[in-house]
């Protein structure tokens, strides 16, 4: 049976105050427990769609619903409790003097008890390997570490939908894997994680559903493995994921999928994706 959507977007349009259309009729159901990749070229509307989903901007036309409730009846503050976002630049949110306080900022905003805050912050810090840094000054951390602080800070809010804008940009492989593990943990709790990204290989390895935007419209949508293996991805300014491309090339060159070589390559590329 199909689960009830956490978020539903129906024919959503968004026009900037200067009259430029950014989103042109997007309809989308966000189901619980999914890892979704939101892809597209620069200026395709990915970040604007994310801002609409978090309620930071409201649709010029169409509707966004959180469960059965229309966003029109909710404040951004109400929505942020259920739908979180981490923007590209961690410096846009870091302002406290200890990593611990920075991660505790969100839970404290919602008036959680000290014990709840402690539990959530501790879990988030361990999840992102920041426990040892908990008393350090966040602005003095490296770029990747500051990004992890931003993730931990939203993770601690436990939103039902979490959107991560360009989460892998400037991150080493280890941190990318931790990010994927965090997404697994959230989806196991029936929460949904959106990766807004240009990193096709990360999306291929770490998500099961992909939505590709082009000029404010949904161009492709479906299973990530199907969407990111399509040769017409170039129309959306993207390249095919490396793993399926490599395997398809081997098949074209007559190497059977049953052969030991093919299986060896498949195992290795999927392990490092």
């Amino acid at each position, binding site marked *: 049976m199909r689960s009830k959507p956490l978020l539903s977007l129906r024919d959503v349009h968004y026009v900037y105050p200067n009259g430029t259309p950014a989103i042109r009729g997007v309809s989308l159901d966000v189901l619980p427990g999914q890892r979704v990749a939101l892809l597209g070229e620069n200026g395709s509307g990915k970040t604007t769609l994310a801002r609409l989903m978090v309620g930071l901007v409201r649709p010029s036309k169409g509707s966004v619903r959180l469960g059965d409730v229309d966003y029109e009846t909710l404040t951004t*503050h109400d929505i942020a409790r259920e739908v979180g976002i981490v923007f590209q630049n961690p410096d846009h949110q870091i302002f406290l003097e200890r990593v611990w306080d920075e991660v505790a900022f969100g839970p404290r905003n919602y008036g959680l008890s000290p014990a709840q805050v402690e539990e959530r912050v501790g879990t988030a810090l361990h999840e992102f390997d920041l426990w040892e840094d908990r008393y350090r000054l966040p602005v003095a951390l490296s770029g990747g570490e500051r990004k992890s602080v931003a993730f931990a800070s939203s993770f601690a809010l436990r939103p039902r939908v979490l959107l991560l804008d360009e989460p892998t940009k400037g991150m080493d492989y280890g941190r990318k894997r931790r990010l994927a593990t965090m997404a697994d943990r959230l989806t196991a709790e029936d929460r949904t994680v959106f990766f807004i990204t240009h990193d096709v290989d990360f999306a291929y390895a770490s998500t099961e559903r992909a939505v590709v935007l082009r000029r404010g419209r949904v161009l492709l949508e479906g299973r990530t493995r199907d969407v990111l293996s399509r040769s017409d991805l170039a129309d959306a300014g993207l390249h095919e994921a490396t793993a399926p491309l490599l395997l398809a090339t081997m098949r074209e060159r007559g190497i059977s999928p049953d052969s030991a070589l093919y299986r060896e390559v498949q195992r290795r590329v999927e392990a490092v994706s």
Partner: protein
Amino acid sequence: MSTALDAFRYQEEDTPLHHLDPRAKLLIVASLILFLWLWWDLAVVLLALVPLTVLVLVGRLGRPLVGSLRLYALLGLLLVPLNVLLHSALTFPPGQAEVLMTLTPPETPLLGGLAITREALIFSLLVYARLVLMLVATSVFFLTTSLDDLEALLLSLRVPYFFVLTLSLAFRFLPTLGEEATRIREAQVARGLDLETGGRLRRLWRAGIPLLLPLFVSVLRRSVRLGEAMEARATFAYPTRTNTVDLVVRPGDVGVVVATLAFLALAFVFRVIVGPA
């Protein structure tokens, strides 16, 4: 939505005022401000209104100036009552001026005998009108002078390139700073910072540190990166450099300068003959 800042931000238009040599524009605006600053009466205010209205009409500046009306209204609300009280007590006290309203009876300790006098009211309104006209004149200059022209103007006035570049960078990064502030606000709201409920002061208080500190850090990081990028492109490496805009005097510019000087001369003569209002 137009804001008070729009009245000081360059608006691209194809008008004679926009094409005028920035040195001529500076002369006009500086003369008007000097004129308003030197004398304190109604005749001066009325005289200054004539060229200002012409400039606003020629430069098609009505719309951006309307955005600044709120700023001027706020300025008036702050300055006029304060000025009236001060001048009624010190410059034009009751006994030397006509009392319009008594505020405290004479027997009140410390603040006894406070009143509003007619002369103080007129004087304060004139001070306010002069200030607004000076600001409008400054607006006219900034609304019609592009950053490239402003840089060329300062360089032609022998201002060191280092200061010109610093000033121009500050202006160029204002919109970026605005965008950055919006992003920071959104990032904090997404973490549950409530900026929607409660009164304006309460929201401002809540927003203060979470917005200002990241903005400050972000600006510092950006400055360091920009400085490095500029050094990597040989900024200040050589004493001589070429410029995008080199100012050339055209006949129209000369005409405007002559007209401005003539207006000033006439105004001075008028002011001396007619005397204070």
